[in-house]
């Protein structure tokens, strides 16, 4: 390519990249989320706003426990049957499989792995959380039915661990999600995890498992923290 050609091409590329840069400041809207118009079978034009038409998007409500005795009994049941949704990122999820082996066998405590957030109560987040994975964690957490509990497994999850000074690792998980049980250790052994479950059972039995309502109460504060670091949010505020 002749010199003139390259330079001219380069300058044009530079302007475009600057334009992109400014544009990035404002929004990171993906193509499938932009406003679009569709022709209906009878010929009329329909305007679609993908971020609002497809999602219910209301704010979460607090489901305060009503009367004590029933709640105490239900808490006992909830503590005895904890259905877990595992979110293994980074090195964290290597510690969960041993629990289903004969040596540790979490089933004895009524703990069971469920693949879908809809049916699970405890949310084990293990491994360091980057900005990208935090976005998915928040959506999964919000889709779980209340009462729900969060177990932060491993120091990287709790306070960023050895990646504390990386440009994309979350340092304080509890600023973004209400966490019930912290299981510290740079990958704690399965026994620690079982102890964590014991701790969680105790908390539930004592009725302290109401972090879901806390999340609903100061929902705006949590959301503000989350949106500070997740710039391309393009999700409804609360994912039902």
């Amino acid at each position, binding site marked *: *390519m002749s*010199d003139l050609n*390259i330079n001219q*091409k*380069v300058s*044009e*590329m*530079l302007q475009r*990249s600057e334009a*992109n840069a400014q544009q*990035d*400041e404002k929004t*990171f809207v993906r193509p499938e989320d932009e406003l679009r118009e569709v022709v209906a079978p009878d010929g009329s034009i329909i305007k679609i706003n993908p971020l609002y038409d497809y999602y219910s998007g209301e704010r979460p409500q607090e489901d305060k426990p009503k009367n004590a005795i029933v709640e105490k009994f239900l808490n006992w049941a909830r503590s005895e049957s904890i259905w877990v949704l595992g979110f293994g990122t980074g090195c964290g999820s290597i510690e969960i499989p041993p629990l289903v082996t004969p040596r540790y066998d979490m089933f004895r405590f009524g703990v069971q792995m469920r693949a879908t957030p809809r049916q699970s109560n405890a949310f084990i987040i293990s491994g360091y959380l980057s*900005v*990208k994975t935090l*976005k998915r964690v928040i959506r999964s957490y919000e889709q779980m039915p209340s009462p729900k509990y969060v177990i932060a497994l491993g120091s990287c999850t709790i*306070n*960023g661990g050895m990646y*504390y*000074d*990386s*440009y*994309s*690792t*979350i*340092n*304080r998980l509890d*600023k973004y999600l209400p966490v019930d049980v912290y299981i510290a250790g740079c990958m704690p052994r399965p026994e620690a995890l079982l102890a964590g479950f014991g701790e969680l059972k105790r908390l539930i039995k004592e009725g302290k498992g109401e972090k879901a309502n806390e999340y609903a109460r100061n929902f705006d504060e949590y959301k503000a923290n989350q949106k*500070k*670091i*997740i*710039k*391309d949010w393009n999700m409804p505020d609360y994912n039902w």
Partner: protein
Amino acid sequence: MEHARLQLVNKLFNDRPKSYKYNLFQMKLLIDRLTQHYNLTDYKQQRHNLAFVTVDKQLSPDIITHLRDYEGFSHFVLLSCVDWIEDDKLQLTYLLNQPNHKYEIGVRVLIDRKNPEMVSLHKMWKQIWTYQRELHEAFGIIFPGSPRLEENFVLEGWTEKPHMLRDFDTKEYAERTYFPRPGRTSNDPATYMREKLYPNQPVTAKTNKND
């Protein structure tokens, strides 16, 4: 035509024992041939089967094409970049491998750091466009014509300057954006030794340039 020439070259170098001296000797021959046509600077024989050479930016595509077609370097290993902030240069290294003689050559190109750009070679090896996307996100290098250059490569919604550049202070950014845990003490060995083990030893070690 193209294929025939490659076969001829392979046959010439094909059936010799791949000993240490042999590689060195071959590498020398290669460099002599190259210097006849192009002015190569700071040739460095890293190992018996690996050598680095820096070439002029304008000629780099021709040299790489020459290496691929005439010298049998048919396998593209990697494209990496080093940020020489002191000389205000970014150094791109195209590592190519000669599968028959099993020796590799690293073609180094120095590009300006202020507005870094380089010709996109994705037409020579298709997979180069992924490396170029990575370098665009990490160092901000522009490869005109490279497919999907602007898309997020690893980070989503990154608004700061390219994070692998040395003048980007990750620690300061982390403390600014995320909630650093209070009371974090670093047990970095250098500071530990200086304060704990040898508190009264005068500081004489060679200081880092930008401390």
